[in-house]
């Protein structure tokens, strides 16, 4: 394909409209550096596109620039994050003292404590149920003793 045919193929038009494939775009950019004809044709097309856009231009709303600036500043002013080292040292002031009493209200314990706490909880429930059971059992036994005592008294009286 000659350069003239290449220009005539319409690939430059597709490129300026952003519809050329990546491969075509790479090839075009390479050819552009070697052939001034392509560069000139491309320049003309880009100028044409600018003209079309100019003819359809609409003044942007007055607040648009402020919104853009705000958006950009939000992107720029992302606070720098510092690694949080929670190991008891005061890194900020450079002092190497160990904070004996930590400000944190939380404490870290070994995972095995989870099982121990669960076992203690279950055991406490078992003891609670058992104590209620034995209490009722005992009350019933006392009642029976009382009944027997009365029966015995009555028996003595009758004889």
């Amino acid at each position: 394909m000659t350069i003239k045919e290449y220009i005539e193929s319409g690939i430059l038009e597709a490129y300026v409209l952003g519809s050329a494939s990546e491969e075509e775009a790479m090839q075009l950019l390479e050819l552009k550096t070697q052939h001034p004809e392509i560069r000139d044709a491309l320049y003309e097309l880009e100028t044409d596109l600018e003209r079309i856009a100019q003819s359809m231009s609409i003044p942007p709303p007055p607040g648009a620039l402020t919104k853009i600036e705000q958006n950009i500043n939000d992107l720029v002013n992302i606070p720098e994050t510092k690694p949080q080292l929670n190991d008891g040292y005061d890194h900020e002031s450079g002092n190497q003292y160990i904070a004996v009493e930590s400000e944190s209200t939380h404490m870290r314990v070994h995972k095995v404590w989870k099982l121990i706490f669960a076992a203690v909880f279950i055991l406490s429930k078992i003891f609670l149920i058992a104590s209620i059971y034995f209490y009722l059992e005992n009350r019933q036994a006392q009642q029976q003793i009382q009944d027997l005592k009365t029966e015995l008294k009555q028996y003595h009286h009758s004889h």
Partner: protein
Amino acid sequence: MVKQNEALLQTKATTIHSLYDAYAGMLMGYIFEIVKDKTLAEEYLVKAFSSVNKQFNEINWSDNKWCLLQRIAKNELTEFYKALKDCDPPVTAINTNSPNKYHDRMTDEQKHIFCNFYYNKRTSAELSQELNKPEKLIRAQLKEAFAVIKTSHDN
């Protein structure tokens, strides 16, 4: 180092400002033709310029600035194009009804192909499938559409 960063930020801000001064109106008009709503167009305009800021270092600034901005805007509009395709029936072409000295002189097919490339970011392969015509012919029509634009401007 800090001073260098500040200088870079300053250049960035100045470049974006001058881009805005030169092209915001054109970009607003372009986006409006696609979304047909001023508030939405403004939203996309803001997004496009924020995107310039984000990609500032990756952008090849030797390219034509307008084409560059248009490409960025098209990328920002990707979701909008997708939404149009999901419509029932799918909207595949945005035909501009606004009076336009360039479009008036094109044939219907040239106008259809040009608008699909210009507003919809569609490729010649997609259009060749849709119109059942070889890709070469689609690109030739696109080229003719550009020739029409050129002559209407020269007149």
